[in-house]
């Protein structure tokens, strides 16, 4: 049974989330503010944290930063703010994904499942997302068992997205991994390579979804 910690100052929201998640088999802990949330996280060691960004006293971003000093537990951001820069900041401080209130329970559960799926482990030199298969040993990609010719940059790009399949990856996170150490702005190059990748993967493979102002999400077909 997974343990989930809900950090939200709205009591009603906590109660509802508890009901929704308990019926899906989660064991729930609650905290009404940041400091309490950090204590609960240290004490119960939850498998996943739902963190509201608009907390009183200590902001959600601050909670996230302190949490990331000692824990890499998956964190899902709950936010009513639609301001993109706050979401991007949260994601770059180590949040795994976000949902914007009001959200449907189905969407919430899908996100939780994806971020709880253990992050990619390097024991297997292969990533599979839907019909797309990446062979990390030979730097080869194939779609429906047919090889897809990718340039080294395109391969590095699809690898980053595939490692985080189903999760949002911010533009900066992608750029840092695909062009490590580059000082110049690579956002233009990123767009160009995404464009090429989309053409090569086509409509039958997993889709590279853009979230304006935030980043990209690789969604395997039939899972969105």
């Amino acid at each position, binding site marked *: 049974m997974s343990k989930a910690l809900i950090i939200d100052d*709205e009591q*009603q*929201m906590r109660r*509802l*989330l508890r*009901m*929704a998640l308990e019926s899906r088999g989660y064991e729930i802990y609650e905290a009404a503010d940041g400091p309490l949330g950090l204590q609960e996280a240290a004490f119960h060691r939850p498998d996943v944290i739902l963190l509201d960004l*608009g907390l009183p006293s200590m902001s959600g971003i601050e909670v996230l930063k302190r949490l990331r000093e000692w824990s890499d537990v998956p964190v899902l951001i709950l936010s*009513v*703010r*639609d*301001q*993109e820069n706050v979401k991007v900041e949260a994601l770059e401080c180590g949040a795994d994904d976000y949902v914007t*209130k*009001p*959200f*449907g*329970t*189905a969407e919430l559960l899908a996100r939780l499942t994806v971020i709880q799926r253990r992050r990619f482990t390097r024991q297997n030199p292969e990533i599979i997302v839907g019909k797309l298969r990446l062979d990390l040993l030979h730097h080869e990609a194939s779609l429906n068992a047919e090889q897809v010719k990718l340039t080294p940059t395109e391969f590095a790009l699809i690898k980053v997205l595939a490692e985080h399949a189903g999760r949002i990856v911010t533009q900066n996170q992608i750029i840092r991994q695909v062009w490590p150490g580059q000082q110049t702005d690579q*956002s*233009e190059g990123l*767009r*160009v390579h*995404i*464009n*090429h990748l989309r053409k090569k993967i086509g409509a039958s493979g997993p889709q590279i*979804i*853009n*979230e*304006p*102002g935030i980043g990209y999400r690789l969604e395997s077909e039939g899972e969105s």
Partner: protein
Amino acid sequence: MSTYTQATSTAKKPVSAEVVGQFSWGITLIFALSSTCWVLLPYTGYMFAALVFLLAIVLAGVSWNRGPVLTMAVMSALVWNFIFIPPQFTLHIDKPQDVIMFALFFIVAMSMGHLITRLRKREESLEQHHREREQLLAAKHRAELLAESERLHRTLLDSISHELKTPIAIIRTALDGLDEGNPFAAEIDTANRRLQRIVENFLEMTRVESDALKPHPEWCEIGDVLHAATTPLQRDIAQHPLVITGAESLPLLMLDSRLLAQALRNVLYNAILYTPAATPVEIHVTLENNILQIRVRDHGHGIPLESLDQLFDKFYRAPDSPAGGTGLGLAISRGLMRAMKGDIEAQNHPEGGAEFTLHLPVKSRQA
């Protein structure tokens, strides 16, 4: 004295016409002073003229440029020698002490002219520095005030947004816990979504009007903009076939995709709301002369002629509008497009239906 005041007021930037004026005034002054001293010569002696000339040079140096002042110095030395130093009306000087006097006069006149004009220049540049500094300080102060009020405004908007959206979110989550077949739950859900749209429209209108809206252009694909515009409408758009043309061949565009998507979304929502179910909605995208144009055409009854002018006004609702709108959607679209230096227009298509055109200037790059 008109030249004097003129020279002071624009002393910072010597204009050639002004310098010419100073030259002629200088020559005139030397002439007038020599005449006066000539008349007074029997009573005062020739040394007096030298002192008068020096005084004139000092005074001229206070307001005039270097060129005219130094010319005055040279001229007065020559005039003094020629007219006043005996023997008169020759450049020849008899007594050795007069030769020394002449040389001294020349040196004193030149250095006075030089030093005083230089002093004035320095003073002026100091003054200008001071003025610039004050202007900078004032500008900084204004910017700080503006930033502070903007920050306050944003905090207020954020907290109102939080207060209004939280209950809506709670209702939404609670509804998800109810049985899906419950018809009452479906009604609450419809009403809640309507409420959410109204709240979002009001908040967005406030943002559009408050100048807090700053476009952040970045390279993007038009397909992503269309995707972002249509995805949130999926529930509503299902009844209308959506036909998109022209998007495939477009290069990368430099624009704020979030703002454009929102402007387009409102136009699409409007088209869906005002046209009979199952009629198609067409989106045609073109890029010409660095102007991106998105035309949205529906196959409804078109826009009543009397509404065309007010369509984009805040709170305007066309007669016989279906219930559920706020009259803000198109006003927001226009505000967003204008914030991006573009605009939006509406007309009736010659073959029926309404046609909205969103256009904005963009940089493009072949992918």
